[in-house]
């Protein structure tokens, strides 16, 4: 059967506020274990939470950036479950009335733009960290667990998409765009590798052309965009396999194993489905008045859609502009190329063309490549000065991406510098004319299509390094 994936993404973003969500302890992950703690975030008897106003401001920013409605009054709830790194054995979270709800972002994959709806963004607190100590370092064989509560109570925003995503590539693009926006807002350092932004995917499949959702599986533990895409892809295929063989998909949480490239079923938490949410009696409803919301809206930085419009204004074609503005690595590279003096459309063409293709082929983020904005500008200048042909420029780009050095060195090392020195070109043209007198007579006699033959011959004798336009001009001057 032909299956259609249905994917939703849950994102946890740790806010980089000065202090924690409900107490005055510093948000600082570098600190010695259990030094940024107090009665509140350790869950000592008698301690009470007091909400961090900046965190409320920042989640509102996030909501506005994702076109969400902002609740004038939202409610904290207690989410009850026992876990040793959760100090109170309940997490202060939100349930039926989150701060932000009903938003969307547009995501573009291979030139096709889709609107992904954002169900909600709600405020909660992070847990502490468990460090399992044992022979293998894995939870099942751990003999001891160490707890670090520095992270306990750090403000956490959970952003939940609707199940609008239809492919692993789209899931990745959504996650990347979301990260781009959050980073642009300056509310989180949003580093996947450090867990300050974390993605979980809810994946199900259904026969193409049908409406009802299949059984959804939650996939966790992806610590790069690439692993998110791989994990979702794997999960789609795994579920299709199970169903094609007449089996059923279990509703469960699965753990992505980066090394093996597979998902494993996690031990299900006992009674995990019933968190016994109820309104947090220690906290009043959160109020975001229209006035405050407007103040916050006024502080929003440029967001990708606005950025794309600005790029069009710089002369970039619309498709490239959307691609550049929608991808953080491309955007960063494009901005630094512009800053280094590269012409906008030229840089846009390379970045959305060769560079993107290279990134896909090599499965490497361009931010992890050797390419810099300086390189792009240098390359553009060489083409402009006719010392590189545009074909050679693309070849140079590939070598630079691979880390072989800056464009001038690479072009020299690969002998790609174009001959635009007129003396050298003239002697090459004269040599070719001397070798092909009959054809030259026909060209001079008006058989203009032979110009291509002569240009080709000149390219041959110069090893492809001649600037074809200059060669053409010289040949014409010999006719006249």
């Amino acid at each position: 059967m032909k299956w259609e994936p249905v994917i939703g993404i849950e994102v946890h973003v740790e806010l980089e506020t000065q202090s924690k969500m409900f107490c005055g302890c510093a948000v600082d992950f570098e600190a010695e274990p259990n030094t940024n703690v107090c009665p509140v975030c350790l869950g000592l008897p008698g301690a009470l939470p007091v909400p961090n106003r900046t965190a409320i401001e920042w989640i509102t920013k996030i909501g506005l950036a994702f076109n969400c409605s902002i609740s004038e009054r939202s409610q904290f709830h207690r989410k009850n479950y026992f876990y040793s790194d959760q100090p109170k054995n309940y997490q202060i979270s939100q349930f039926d009335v989150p701060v932000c709800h009903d938003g969307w972002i547009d995501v573009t994959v291979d030139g096709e733009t889709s609107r992904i709806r954002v169900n909600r963004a709600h405020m909660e607190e992070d847990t502490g960290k468990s460090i399992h100590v044992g022979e293998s370092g894995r939870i099942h064989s751990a003999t001891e667990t160490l707890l670090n509560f520095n992270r306990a109570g750090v403000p956490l925003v959970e952003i939940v998409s609707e199940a609008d995503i239809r492919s692993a590539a789209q899931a990745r693009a959504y996650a990347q765009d979301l990260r781009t926006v959050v980073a642009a807002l300056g509310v989180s350092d949003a580093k996947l590798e450090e867990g300050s932004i974390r993605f979980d995917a809810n994946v199900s499949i259904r026969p193409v052309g049908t409406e009802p959702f299949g059984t959804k599986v939650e996939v966790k533990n992806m610590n790069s965009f690439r692993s998110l895409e791989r994990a979702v892809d794997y999960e789609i295929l795994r579920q299709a396999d199970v169903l094609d063989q007449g089996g059923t998909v279990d509703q469960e949480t699965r753990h992505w194993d980066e090394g093996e490239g597979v998902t494993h079923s996690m031990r299900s938490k006992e009674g995990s489905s019933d968190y016994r949410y109820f309104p947090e009696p220690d906290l009043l409803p959160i109020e975001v008045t229209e006035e405050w919301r407007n103040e916050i809206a006024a502080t929003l930085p440029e967001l990708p859609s606005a950025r794309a419009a600005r790029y069009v204004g710089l002369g970039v074609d619309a498709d490239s502009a959307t691609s550049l503005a929608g991808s953080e690595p491309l955007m960063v590279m494009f901005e630094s190329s512009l800053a280094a003096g590269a012409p906008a459309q030229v840089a846009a063409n390379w970045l959305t063309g060769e560079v993107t293709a290279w990134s896909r082929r090599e499965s490497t983020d361009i931010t992890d490549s050797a390419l810099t904005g300086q390189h792009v500008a240098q390359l553009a200048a060489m083409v402009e000065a006719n010392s590189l042909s545009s074909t050679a420029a693309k070849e140079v780009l590939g070598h630079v991406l691979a880390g072989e050095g800056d464009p001038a060195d690479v072009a020299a090392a690969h002998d790609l510098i174009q001959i635009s020195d007129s003396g050298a070109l003239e002697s090459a043209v004269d040599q070719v004319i001397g070798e092909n007198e009959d054809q030259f007579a026909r060209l001079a006699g008006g058989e203009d299509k032979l110009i291509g033959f002569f240009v080709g011959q000149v390219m041959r004798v110069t090893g492809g390094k001649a600037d074809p336009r200059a060669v053409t001009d010289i040949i014409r001057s010999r006719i006249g």
Partner: protein
Amino acid sequence: MTDPADFTLVEAAAALRAGQQTSVALTEAVLTRASLTEAAVHAYLTIDRSGALAAAEAADRRISSGRAVGPLDGLPIALKDNMMTRGLETTASSKILAGYIPPYDGTVVARLREAGAVFVGKTNLDEFAMGSSTENSAFGPTRNPWNLDTVPGGSSGGSAAAVAAGSALAGLGSDTGGSIRQPAALCGLVGMKPTYGLVSRYGLIAFASSLDQIGPLTHTVEDAAILYEAIAGHDPLDATSFPGPAPSGTVRLGAGVSGLRVGIVNELSGQGIDDEVMAAFRTTVERLAAAGAEIVELSLPSTATALSAYYLIAPAECSANLARFDGVRYGLRIDGGTVDEMMSRTRADGFGPEVIRRILLGTYALSAGYYDAFYGQAQRVRTLIIQEFAAAYEQVDVLVSPTAPAPAFELGAKTQDPLSMYMQDICTIPSNLSGHPAMSVPVGLSTTGLPIGFQVMAPALGETVMFQVAAAIEELSDDIGRPVLEVVAS
């Protein structure tokens, strides 16, 4: 001459100012009283003799140099053992916290320290404040100084018994469903629960967060007003703290009741109330009328369901509040093969049966599929009660009822029957659900010589008029005197 251990706060403060007493002498007097009574009464879990004397000496230095910090400076006070005291063991009468030394002072404790109060020690309570007799303590029951065969009420029975016995001049309790007012009634004291949000809960070991309030237990209304004023006021560490100034407790004391409208709540003043208690109640109402109050009879039908709503809301909140006691970070730990097993064993062993009963009740009430029928319905009842009380206070200045349905009962009489124990709070619970202030004033003794309390309830932030009426009742009632303890008399 009166033993200083039997002084009111006002008398003791006057004696200090006049140089007739020192704080050390007052503190020695209550410590001596405690040494005589504690074996029989067991009001305290911890007596901090050295800490109290050190604080008393510091107070004496301030007073003698004319730098007394207020009306409580140098006065020995008892703290219920569910209030966090830095460096002094705090257990909530639970085995799960036995030996626990808090690293911080709760806001109320810090304020009283600032005000110069001397903390005699930490008093017994029903475990985590769950009970009405102080029999649910992991460390043994407290007995009522008026009759050692009877209970002092609960859950603040230790503070009530300490004040009644003279082993503190005043005490602090916490009131979630009547835990200050009912022991006040049973021990012949004034006990007061402020408007929810007026007194910080920071540092109070939570039982039911939306209901808990700290308040005073004293010999007189004026003492209660003074102690209330010392602890009330906004606290940035408690997000539910009322942001404005707290109403005065003392400003209208002695102003009488002439022209005030006093409402009798029919549903709280008849069925299920002991005859002698009802007789004392009626006598007091007649005296109020004679003193110029207008008496109005009112019906608040939703109060009939208050007890049921309370026994869903309070357990639901406690089921989450008590989840933190898991053996991981502090308190009792019973090892197990896994972390989950350790937590289960610790909690099974560390909590007493009433606490476990309420955690289970609350967990059930919040469970998927039951939430709306139980917790949701209880919250709707609560809203109804708030609305009915608000409407009643359009017609009257205060509402009145008996405090407890009967005088003190014998130890063990209700321990096998939780429902009859829960009925102790039938008159006090509505004010917790509505968040309104309420207090109990002693109005007489039963034929068996046990105190009877009278409850005055007021609208939110109505403390001033409530204290005014309570002071008038105190004035109009016969003085019940102090309990006679053989150990002290001999």
